[in-house]
């Protein structure tokens, strides 16, 4: 038993409560592709060597063992009878006793290709023909997850099959815990059944156990996307009566959401609510609000948030400074934004590509494309390499600043590094080229945009077409003069 936990841990629900989808996938899916082979291999190796390390590490990294050729899926058809046969032959030919992990892997791989009803029957069959197998929590969680996922295939969504999975769990003496709730809610959210997720969460919270904050916040985040705000608040109130209170993360999610809908007044109100609830706003909350003001081009408020952070003693991080510089550049207060470049360096945050690009964007908007180019040099001196956004910003700035020659040079650099063009910089560049009667070059840029898949063919062509139409008109007018 002492050796088992490391390998068991991967299937243990405890690890899956943070990111069940990601953590449970590699462990539970891999066995699904070759359930009999892999455990065979690892166990075989484990027993004589008395060391669990190599086997568990090989399992973690998922490297296929050299001795075993490419694993074949154990269940080839979703048919229940053939799965039963496969299972029976496995049991009779197996050189070692199968443990609960194998059974779970088998159940999982079968349920993934089959339907949920057959999966229930398959479990029954496994218990009947192999009485030493007693299904554990993982077994039932597999069925629960699959039952939630199965809902998407039916037009009429009905939670009864999910309830059946839960009931089966309870009948066998296992209380659904927060992991079960998380798995179910996540599966439901994945297939876009948020309303049913709410229903199920209420039901499970009342009957069995409360969800943890991860599940709760996940659902809030999803609800914010699909529901109007008041109904999200109603959900929060309902959960409060059950005993689940929103935490700082929940409030940050809410604030982010209202900021996105440009409702800064509500964001400020929420800030008050979370203080009343006994939370102290942290860096993330302030960053979110600052981002909200940036969206609305309210430079003074952006600085206001920064000052408030300072007053409250919240340490600004790199994101804060980037947001600040982005916001100020956006509204044209480039000089102030530049000052913060020094401030952030003093505070020990080195500016990154985002910082510089925001600043360059501001400078280009002011028509100072050369200044932006100088900043690029400074940026590279500081060991920060430009990204595609930087290049696009500069290309656009140079074209707008009537520095087409430099723009073409710059485009060549972008092309050699296979940087993709953004729609706006592509349009600006093509227009600038056409203005200078460099039609062939414009066609060449069009080719590059299509080849590099920067834009869709339609987008690239319609831009080219409109620009050429405009260029032709300009030309005719010039000739008429």
């Amino acid at each position: 038993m002492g050796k088992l936990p490391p390998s068991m841990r991967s299937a243990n629900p405890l690890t899956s409560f943070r990111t069940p989808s990601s953590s449970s996938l590699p462990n539970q899916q891999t066995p699904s592709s070759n359930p009999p082979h892999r455990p065979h291999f690892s166990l075989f190796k484990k027993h004589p060597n008395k060391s669990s390390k190599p086997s568990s590490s090989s399992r973690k990294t998922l490297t296929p063992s050299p001795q075993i050729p490419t694993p074949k899926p154990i269940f080839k058809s979703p048919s229940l009878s053939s799965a039963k046969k496969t299972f029976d032959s496995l049991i009779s030919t197996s050189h070692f006793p199968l443990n609960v992990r194998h059974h779970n892997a088998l159940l999982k791989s079968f349920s993934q290709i089959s339907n949920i009803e057959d999966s229930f029957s398959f479990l029954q069959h496994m218990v009947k023909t192999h009485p030493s197998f007693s299904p554990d929590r993982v077994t039932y969680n597999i069925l629960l997850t699959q039952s939630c996922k199965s809902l998407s295939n039916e037009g009429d969504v009905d939670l009864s099959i999910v309830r059946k999975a839960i009931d089966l769990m309870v009948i066998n003496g296992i209380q659904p815990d927060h992991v079960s709730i998380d798995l179910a809610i996540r599966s439901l959210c994945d297939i876009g059944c948020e309303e049913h997720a709410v229903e199920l969460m209420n039901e499970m919270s009342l009957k069995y156990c409360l969800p943890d904050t991860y599940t709760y916040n996940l659902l809030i985040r999803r609800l914010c996307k699909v529901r109007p705000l008041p109904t999200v608040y109603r959900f929060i109130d309902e959960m409060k009566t059950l005993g689940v209170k929103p935490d700082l993360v929940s409030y940050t999610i809410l604030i982010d959401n209202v900021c996105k809908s440009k409702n800064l007044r509500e964001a400020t109100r929420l800030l008050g609510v979370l203080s009343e609830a006994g939370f102290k706003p942290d860096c993330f909350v302030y960053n979110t609000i600052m981002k909200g003001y940036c969206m609305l081009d309210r430079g003074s408020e952006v600085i206001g948030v920064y000052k408030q952070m300072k007053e409250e003693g919240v340490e600004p991080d790199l994101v804060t400074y980037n947001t600040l510089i982005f916001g100020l550049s956006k509204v044209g207060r480039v000089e102030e934004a530049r000052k913060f470049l020094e401030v952030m360096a003093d505070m020990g945050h080195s500016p990154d590509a985002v910082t510089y690009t925001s600043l360059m964007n501001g400078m280009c908007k002011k028509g100072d494309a050369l200044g932006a180019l100088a900043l690029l040099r400074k940026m590279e001196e500081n060991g920060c390499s430009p990204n595609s956004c930087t290049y696009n910003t500069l290309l656009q700035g140079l074209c707008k600043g009537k520095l087409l020659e430099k723009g073409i040079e710059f485009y060549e650099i972008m092309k050699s590094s296979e940087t993709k063009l953004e729609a706006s910089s592509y349009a600006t560049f093509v227009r600038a080229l056409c203005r200078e009667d460099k039609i062939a070059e414009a066609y060449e840029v069009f080719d590059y945009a299509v080849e590099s898949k920067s834009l869709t063919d339609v987008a690239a062509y319609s831009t080219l077409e409109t620009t050429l139409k405009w260029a032709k008109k300009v030309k005719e007018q010039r000739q008429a003069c």
Partner: protein
Amino acid sequence: MLPQLTKKTITENPKKLASLIDLANLPSTLRDFVGQSQISRLRCFMHVWSYIKANNLQDPNNKNVVNCDEKLSKILLGKSQVELVELPMLVKLHFPKEPK
């Protein structure tokens, strides 16, 4: 940013988009050129443009001008020389607006 913009152009003017990507029955002249009986305006333009590139039909002295060969001239109003600026318009002539 990119998908948003593309989406915007699509939602902005669905008719314009349709005129670009909908397959149209081709007149016999064009059918010979592209080797298909149906093509969208976008594909047709791409076809003509790649034909120009493949056969080096751009004027070496002025890249903005295309010296048509016999085949190309047939589908571009019989002109011996066309400017790249007007190429989309010339292609468009083969795709008349459908009467309502």
